């Protein structure tokens, strides 16, 4: 027989907890998903990022001592249904000229992406097998996970706040992977996305990298609208540990064109070996 007094106290406590919960006094992380944030992310996902695209990409890799290496790549991409195909050829430096990469990024999460590479000196194409996308793209701070589209069902989204980035209002949305498999796939334990309120473009992102305790800062420096598509033409990616910069990548795209009527044949191993 519980003491009447204790019963009353318990009721009071439980009542307070419910009220507190209702008033939102519990941390947001405790709740699974924020519908407002999810809606925004759905719009981000649905945003038209263009098709039949060609561009010249320049990549500057900067190490922790500030030493630079430059690469120039010509890139082509096209959607085949929901799958994204990408073809890239190195233009510079000279010792890797005409090396080519072909990627099929499948929308189906159960299907591993395919990647082929062609080394001119080897005169052979090799398929690269990797089970996760956390690997670096060409030695840069960009990973394949960064370039692939996210499956919204893999994450919980919460709205952190709204703020201003370079004169544009953004939402800060926190994205937490729902399973260990997703963390393994992307290499990130958590991300915060800065979404532009006017065009649903992710203008900045901070990623918590699992291996090594780094933070990765993705900053789209220049955003342009080309043929009606919003595209980042300059992007800086910085890997930091505390205040120290471990590595940095500066990417820029020139001559970005859409709707170039690219053929599916372009995105083939045969074409990879043939070159530009």
């Amino acid at each position, binding site marked *: 027989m519980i003491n009447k007094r204790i019963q009353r106290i318990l009721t009071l406590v439980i009542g307070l907890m419910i009220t507190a919960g209702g008033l939102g006094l519990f941390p947001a992380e405790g709740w699974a998903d924020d519908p407002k944030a999810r809606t925004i992310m759905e719009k981000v996902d649905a945003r038209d990022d263009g098709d039949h695209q060609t561009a010249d990409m320049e990549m500057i890799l900067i190490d922790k001592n500030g030493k630079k*290496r430059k690469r120039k790549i010509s890139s082509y991409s096209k959607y085949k249904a929901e799958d994204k195909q990408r073809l890239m050829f190195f233009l510079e430096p000279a010792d890797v000229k005409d090396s080519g990469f072909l990627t099929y990024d499948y929308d189906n999460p159960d299907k591993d992406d395919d990647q082929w590479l062609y080394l001119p000196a080897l005169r052979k194409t*090799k398929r690269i097998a990797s089970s996760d996308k956390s690997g670096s793209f060409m*030695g840069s701070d960009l990973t394949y996970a960064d370039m692939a589209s996210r499956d919204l069902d893999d994450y919980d989204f919460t709205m952190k706040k709204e703020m201003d980035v370079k004169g544009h209002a953004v939402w800060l949305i926190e994205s937490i992977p729902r399973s260990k498999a997703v963390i393994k796939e992307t290499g990130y334990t958590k991300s915060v996305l800065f979404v532009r309120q006017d065009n649903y473009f992710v203008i900045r992102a901070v990623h918590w990298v699992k291996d090594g305790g780094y933070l990765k800062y993705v900053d789209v420096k220049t955003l342009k609208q080309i043929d009606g598509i919003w595209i980042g033409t300059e992007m800086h990616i910085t890997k930091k540990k*505390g205040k120290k910069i471990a590595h940095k990548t500066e990417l820029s795209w020139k001559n970005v064109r859409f709707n170039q009527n690219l053929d599916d044949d372009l995105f083939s191993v045969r074409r990879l070996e043939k070159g530009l």
Partner: protein
Amino acid sequence: MPAIRNKIEKWFEKFSLNIFRFRWATILITLVIVGVFVSWIPKITFDTSNESFLHENSPVLKDYNAFRDQFGRDDLIIIAIKSTNVFSLGFLEKLKNFHDNLRDDVPHIEEITSMINARSTRGENDALIVGDLLENWPENQEQLEIIKKRVMGNPLYLNRLISENAQFTSLVLKTETYSNTTALDDPLAGFDESQAPADQNQFLSDEEISETVYHVKKIVEKYRDNNFEIYTAGPPVVSSTLKRLMIKDQNLFMRMIVLTIAIGLFVMFRRISAVVLPMIVVVCALVSTLGLMAIFKVPLKMPTVVLPSFILAVGIADSIHILTLYYRDLAIGGDKKQAIQTAMGHSGLAVVLTTLTTAAGLASFGISKVAPIAELGIFAAVGVTLSLIFTLILLPALLAVTPAKALKSSRTSSGKSRFDRILKWIGTFSTRNATAITITCILLLMLSIAAVSRLSFTHDVLKWLPETEPVRISTETIDNALKGSVAMEIIVDTGRVNGLYDIHTLNTLEQLAREIENIRQGDLFVGKASSVVDILKEIHQALNENRSEYYVVPSDPALIPQELLLFENSGSDDLEDVVDSQFQKARFTIKVPWLDAVKYVALIQDLSARFDRAFGKDINVSMTGMMTIMFSTVVSAIYSAAQSYVIAGLVITIMVILLIGSLKIGLLAMFPNMLAILFVMGLVAVFNWPFDMFTMLIGSIAIGLCVDNTIHFMHNFRRYYRKTGNVGKAVEETLLTTGRALFISTVVLSIGFFIYAFASMKNLFYFGLLTGMTIALALVANFFLTPALLALVARFSNLFPREVSND
């Protein structure tokens, strides 16, 4: 000379009167000053790393730091697991859990590698696979066999992650390079692209390393089991073990020396104040010295562990001399003021002189290129000097405020006279048998010199630990099973961007690696030599259907940059560990067992020669890494030891000559002390005891201390000789007056060193034993040989030139 001496004695008397007058102010001011020093003590740091043996501005250390800035730390923690069935599902499951546990729960780890995530690069049909070895977890025996074959067939795994007999597998932990003291308060604010200034990069601190090792050990204990025997080694483990034992020993010694001193003082003076007051004085000196070390940001290192007990033991002698005279004067019926005046007047000068000689001996190794030895020398000299200052200022003030009655002579007359009879006998024996004693001692000296010439230096920090210490056993086990546990690093700088794409350079590196792996010099062997070439060979083989004949540097130079590009795209960041981003500098790592640094002399010369021959002038080759640091320490230590011995010997001899006032007698006075030191060093050579940076200190420390006895002896001998004109009589008087004080202070001092025999650290054991022996033998020599020499010389010439004396 006597006029000056008189003047000084009078000055001390006046000084002591002033102290008496302002006794309370003196005590207060002194305690305030000491208080300031004490407030700094909590900021004292420890540093038991190998790097701490070199000065900050040493070129070797600068090279090492530049290397670590580029490639990270090379002092890896190696955890080896012994098991009869490494390639079984059960074992691998446990290994995975162990690996994950270490990865998740050990702080300051940058990377952990084991069979679980070892880079596996291979071709399969038309695919190139670069991934973790156990990415696809084996599910049956067949798959286990494939894994086993892959592992045992990979030269990069052999003797790194798996032993040749497959009974040992290892996990290698690389600690973070820098201290993570600057975490961002708001991660979201990190878009500011300004870089933290480079000089803010502090290497991982001693504290942090200890923390890491602590967590590793905790987790290791959880997994240790039959058929899962775990051995943990690597420089971080060694240095944190050294630190732990160092602190333990230091605490023990402090307590023991305080006890010894207290007992010694009580036996001598039979009153509590005679124990308490001098203790206050030396403790003030000690804490002030420690405070100064904290102020000057000098960390406590292995050699400086002897500092506290040293300052206490040495500092107390000054008080003993002052107190002896003080209590004697009180007993005669003087009042406190008078007694203080007398004691200070008579002993003040002598005490100053003896401290100066001790400090000079210690300061002589302030020039040592071995940083902790230099620090020990300087701060020990500071400590004994502070002790002197406090003895002359604080002690009289404390005596002035302490009530003191003259004690009835509690010493039984028989006790006193028995000791006196012994002293008398010594005097008679030594002066009567002067020739025999002198000749015997000269023979001993010659034998000692002969033995000393055979001394060879040794530096092996691991051997300082007791044989049963786990890290010592583990290191030896891992050195055997995995062919080494520490590394030498060679940086090959091609001098231009992409210089490492050059096929000739790569082939040369490959050739050198094969040659070097065959080196064997006694118990020194090379376990593994690796560089970026290994990664290139791996990729080349994988791109050619894993055919073993392709495990070579590509013959087409055009393939090299492309294959490396491919590797960069694979997601592995292993290239960062072996080349810089410009492909200009390559890191060539040579794995070796942990041996006495002296054994690496020949190897280092050999490697130098090989690389010079192979690369010529165009390519800059430099050696660094942990073993090079240890080796450099050896070279510095030997060089500095020789230097400091010469300096100490010269400086102190000159001081003694000046103090005694006669070249002849001065040199004569040094002989017994030199004999004692050389004799003990000779024993080290004969019994093959370690002659390392600790035992090497003995000579410099002992000279300063032993000479103190000589100075007191001569100070009094001169007085009595001038009175009696007879050596025998003068010796007797000297022994009867100062003999007892000399005996007690020597006993206290040598016990202060003998207590190191209780050290858990073996280097301290030998250091303490041998220094104690030296001091004790020096007293014996001073009692027997000095009178003998004086008697002998007196037969042929005037001992002291005629002086007008006012004594």
